[in-house]
């Protein structure tokens, strides 16, 4: 019986392994950076062979201990991280794809990478992989780019909450800014911090070239019941505001919590994550 189990287990392992794709003919890549902002980069990767699997990584100069490594060493180190991380994911995540699903691409791709540091030199490398054996094929290639610097404004916001309404007065009335709010529990469940919620929303609108519609300037009064029919009496929300100009967030964000009331003044407090 024990032997049968071993055979069955071996068959299962073999099946699991065969799920991963394999392609080993080496190819080259055409890497082209098309647009750079303070925290994002857009680039295209065109492999000479559309069947080749490849992955990419981006490092900033802040990672000074590895930033100047030879590209093959950088790729090897990353591959080690990917393999280790995938093993953890495989055990902890539901419905995880194959190694290739998670890390690899095939064919021509236009990719946007977010979360970069402002005004820093970055190195983007592309490495061909065989997902089945998780080994490097050929020689990795890399390009350098520098993220934009943005002059940060010392923008502050004066908030005045009344019943069913909010008036925002920025410290610089000529400055443009973006603000948003959502259910506090929802944000807490979905995002690590309210700032990440904010950056995600801004990123979404930028992706759809819709940000110009969302920008405020000067003093703004917002009546909740006229604009947001989903808001409920007593609902606790998180509010985030920050300067925004020329396609970039250009001030520190201000975060508040408020409890919505239609017929009495809305209570609000600066956001606290509960840590001293």
């Amino acid at each position: 019986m024990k032997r049968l189990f071993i055979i069955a287990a071996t068959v299962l392992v073999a099946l699991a392994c065969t799920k991963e794709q394999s392609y080993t003919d080496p190819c080259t890549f055409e890497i082209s950076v098309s647009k750079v902002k303070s925290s994002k980069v857009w680039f295209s990767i065109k492999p000479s062979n559309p069947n080749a699997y490849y992955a990419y990584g981006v490092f900033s100069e802040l990672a000074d201990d590895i930033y100047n490594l030879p590209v093959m060493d950088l790729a090897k180190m990353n591959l080690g991280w990917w393999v280790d991380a995938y093993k953890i994911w495989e055990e902890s995540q539901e419905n995880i794809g194959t190694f290739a699903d998670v890390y690899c691409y095939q064919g021509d791709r236009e990719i946007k990478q977010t979360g970069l540091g402002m005004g820093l030199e970055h190195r983007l490398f592309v490495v061909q992989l065989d997902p089945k054996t998780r080994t490097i094929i050929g020689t990795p290639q890399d390009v350098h780019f520098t993220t934009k610097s943005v002059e940060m404004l010392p923008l502050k916001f004066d908030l005045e909450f009344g019943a069913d309404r909010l008036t925002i007065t920025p410290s610089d009335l000529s400055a443009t800014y973006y603000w948003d709010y959502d259910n506090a529990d929802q944000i807490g469940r979905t995002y690590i911090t309210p700032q990440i919620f904010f950056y995600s929303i801004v990123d979404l609108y930028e992706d759809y070239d819709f940000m110009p519609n969302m920008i405020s300037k000067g003093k703004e009064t917002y009546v909740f019941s006229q604009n947001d029919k989903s808001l409920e009496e007593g609902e606790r929300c998180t509010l985030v505001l920050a300067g925004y100009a020329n396609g970039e967030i250009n001030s520190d964000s201000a975060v508040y919590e408020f409890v919505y009331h239609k017929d009495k003044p809305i209570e609000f407090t600066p956001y606290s994550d509960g840590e001293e």
Partner: protein
Amino acid sequence: MKKYIILLAISFLGASCVKPPVEFVDFETFKVTSVKSTDVAMADGTVNPEVQFMESEDPETKVAVTSVARLVSDLLGAINSNNVIHVSGTYTGHDIDGTPITLSGKLLVPRDGKIKNMVIVSHYTIGANYECPSECFPMEGLVAAKGYAVVVADYIGFGVTANRVHPYMHVESTARSVVDMALAVKPYLEKIGRKPESDKVILMGYSQGGSTTLAVMRMIQKEYSDVLPIQKVYCGGGPYDLAATYDKAMADDVTGIPCAIPMILQGVNVGQDLGLDYADFFQPRLLENYDEWINSKRYTVNQMNRLMGAKALHELMTDAGRDKNNPTTARFYKALLYNSVLDFQPKSPIYMFHSREDQTVPFVNAQRAETFFKGYNIDFDFGDYGVHSMGAIRFIMHVAIEL
């Protein structure tokens, strides 16, 4: 939420979805209104002409006939029961505002043999009420012959609620109609002794149904994962990213499905109570006639498209309606963002199908889905599979063969 927003978080973060509060309803409410039995295949081996397939984009071209014949011959090789029982019925579901409402739909089960799983179908875009699942033999019902209980809700606006505007592409209410029916049918199947062997459900939908299927998956994962555990999801040709679909249509100044314009505008306007004035969006001829063309539920999609008489957007929509930076249109566009369905982590395997040649639901939707769902266990089947209706046949074939 300040402005209706969807949180299309790119990382593997959780999902967010604003929805109205949902009142408790008793789901053991499935009431049978009619029962009939239908053979899937005729004596000569052809498919029963009663089966309602998606209309071809060009009604003059019988392009789908060969494929349909193949589908049936493939299916016939594996069916458990050539005879399928159709049970039309009503159930208590939720209205757009979350209050209880009586809705309708159809359950299809094989006449003989055991039932393996419940297949929860979200149907594709229809126009005429006679096309709604409770009134016909929907094409997805074919898989019932392979030993499945196929549940197809009519959605609000069809069947017993045909007098209502259909909240087309308002994903929350549409998905909830589908989930509510599955919850209502589950105890009914047990009561009639046809309980599936597995509690796991299979989700399936093409076109509008593809998008709704992902919304159903998201809803079940969030609210009903204990009672409706998902085995696998099949979605095809879906407008998963409505904002990207709008952008593509506006850039090309053309749409493959003109009737979707008034349907989407009405659907999200009603679904989210936006208070939009259609005069800001529709050209005069459409404004004058949309209620008859769309809301009478007398015309199929092809008929509505013919009545509208144009595919160029500038002939159907005002300049302001085609400009998302117009303040009024911006409100509509935000609603499109809100009604996209890619903002969650799929916890079950998905088969996602899309033809690159699809002009009705552009391929950009599949590309967006691939980007958002990268890393999950998803079988992306993208290829040059012909026009939208041809894709529907290929999709159904794939599901029927795999099940």
